[in-house]
């Protein structure tokens, strides 16, 4: 176990050294097997409320940010709504209705930007996978994209 961790560490260092500025833009740590490997060494650290990813606290406004929600709707149209309906009906993935009531905002943002490790660890996501049988793809969302989509989900859940 320790050895595996060291190898993974060495490997990620290697990648980091060779990386060029331009690459970081396209580089997606979630898709990098070494990142999964590193965290996979300690499953007990997984927080099912927050999920796993870069977001620890997400501040939500009391009222809806209409501009953000509109942007979120645009991005969803390109990257999400092929598989998710706005109702509670399952398409490829579960419908979005009520998702912001069921999940913490951090969890949602972590999951949509960093799906692979969470699919592997989150018990509820694993249960969902048994129903849908399609792993949610990493759609390369930026942090802003993710925040906007969250706002769009809130709008869908009736936040005004």
């Amino acid at each position, binding site marked *: 176990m320790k050895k595996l961790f060291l190898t993974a560490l060495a490997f990620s260092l*290697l*990648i980091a050294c*060779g*990386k*060029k500025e*331009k*690459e970081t833009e*396209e*580089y*997606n740590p979630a*898709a990098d097997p070494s990142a999964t490997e590193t965290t996979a060494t300690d499953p007990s650290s997984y927080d099912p409320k927050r999920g796993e990813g870069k977001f620890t606290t997400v501040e939500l406004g009391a009222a809806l940010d209409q501009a953000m929600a509109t942007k979120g709707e645009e991005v969803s*149209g*390109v*990257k999400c*709504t*092929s*598989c998710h309906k706005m109702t509670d009906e399952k*398409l*490829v993935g579960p419908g979005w209705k009520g998702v912001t009531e069921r999940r913490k905002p951090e969890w949602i943002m972590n999951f949509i930007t960093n799906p692979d490790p969470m699919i592997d660890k989150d018990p509820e996501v694993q249960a969902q996978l048994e129903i849908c*049988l*399609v*792993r949610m*793809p*990493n*759609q*390369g*969302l930026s942090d802003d994209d993710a925040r906007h989509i969250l706002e769009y989900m809130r709008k869908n859940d009736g936040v005004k």
Partner: protein
Amino acid sequence: MKNKFVKAIFAIALGSALFTSCKPKNSGDAVSGDAAQKAYVAPGKYDEFYNFVSGGFSGQLSVYGLPSGRLFRVIPVFSVDPEKGWGYSEETKPMLNTSNGFVPWDDLHHTEMSQTNGEVDGRWVFGNANNTPRIARIDLKTFKTAEIIELPNSGGNHSSPFITENTEYVVAGTRFSVPADYANGDVAINTYKENFKGHISFVKVGKEGEMDLAFQIVTPGVNFDLSHAGKGKSHGWFFFSCYNTEQANTLLEVNASQRDKDFIMAVNWKKAEEYIKAGKGKKQTVKYAHNKWNEKTHTATSEIKNEVLVLDAAALKDICYMIPCPKSPHGCDVDPTGEYIVGSGKLAALIPVFSFDKLMGAIKNKKFEGDYGGINVVKYEAALHGEVQKPGLGPLHTEFDGRGNAYTTFFVSSEVVKWDIKSLKVLDRVPTYYSVGHLCIPGGDSKKPFGKYLIAYNKITKDRYLPTGPELAQSAQIFDISGDKMELVLDFPTIGEPHYAQAAPADLIRNNGQLKFYKIADNNHPFVAKGEKEAKVTRKGNRVDVYMTSIRSHFAPDNIEGIKVGDEVYFHVTNLEQDWDVPHGFAIKGADNGELLIMPGETATLKWVPKKTGIWPMYCTDFCSALHQEMQGYVRVSPAGSSVPLSWSVGTNLPKATK
């Protein structure tokens, strides 16, 4: 019974031993005990080097790992490739356009990596089309052919695509001299000496890689075979081997072997640039295609160009010089210091090594023995550093390890011979299985070779692997050259017939800003559908455009009606995935075309002209998810002139069912 069997085996073995008389002795036990360990790359571990190997008559470029010999990918370049839809999709068809129209096949002979300061830099690999002369540039961020330029006035683009030490130029010397495209070509073939000319092309390479045919040099009619650029002190010069200086036009196997010596032609390209600046080039009217791939529109464009600048080597005396070289020279290789130029006569039993300093002295002091078609011929001894005596039979190609050693392949005696460049002494030899052509040491033709492995590319593999009919796999063999003795560690089969190859450290390539997916926001394809809400079908006369999307695990739309027999249907499929390694495919029954293979965030177009009415299934060809098999749809085709309205849908049954 058993005895009989053994006898039969023995007879076969004897027969095949006689049959493969080129097979070296003791070929079976040349592998030492720890060879497997040296070639072993454990599952999940990465190779040390990428090896870019020409695919010969397959027209493609293959990518292997070293030292494992694992095949990673075949990159389509000059031949249509149904696996990737290359040459089948509307976007890629222009890449194979030439002045002769769409050419679906070519013979990719040599690969050359871009260099900076004489070192491989991991940006691009170039490849040459032999048959319909072209040069391709393959982008190593996308492992995709990014550009192809055709070469006028040429036939058999063999001595190509070799590059200068900062990738200033990629060159191409014609194998077949032919009447120039700008001259009357309708001449008797036996007027070779008067009417046939050689042209050497200098293709300028821009910062982003874009190629431009800067100029050509016209020479007497000979066959140019191979070449290499000078480097270091000889930067500014290029060297081309040539044969058939007899200028024969029939039975060359005899008639082009008459002279004891042919030539290596030394070209001062810096001088040529000066002459171009001084206006000494002559504009000639020709026709050639220049094809470029656009990463933003996911589409290639082909432009036909009409002019080339030509310099006359006979008139401008100080551009070209001929160096006599024994017996039909083939390989022409320059050592890492740039001082030594190794010629290899296919029919020779020695290797002549020329000295750049001595060549310069000979030119300065006019040590010429006459001229050839108006080009000065330097005296052999005046340019010669020395000869490697009795190295083997049929020397072809030489690469270097950066430690003062040269390694030459011998086709006839099937071996690789290591020798000392300065003293010209033979140091070691190993057998190959069998007739070896090119060889590659990572960085072995650059200023900085990574002299750990040597790979030999063999033309014949009789009895080396399980047989597969009259045609057998060609092969490559990896030798560890880190010690005094070369040591065979692995052999592996290759695609096509491997010619030259290049290799670079793995990290140089995989950390060069490799593309993981195309950002859908940056997709500027004119028929992109960014999301399912943009999926639609439009009709203009008999042209139907289907704006289709694909994501795990469905197409949108997946039901289309109102298509008629004889319509020109264009399926523009946008892959909505934004994740590494999730391509989708697209195929439709009965299409007289290929499939599409669409990368994440990319759009690709399949043209389909339905010929019969009925229901035509379509599906995804690249396994994408547990529900991949469900990724399918239907197209209804009605008779020409039918009034079935155009409709499309996904998830809803449209049009409404009528009772």
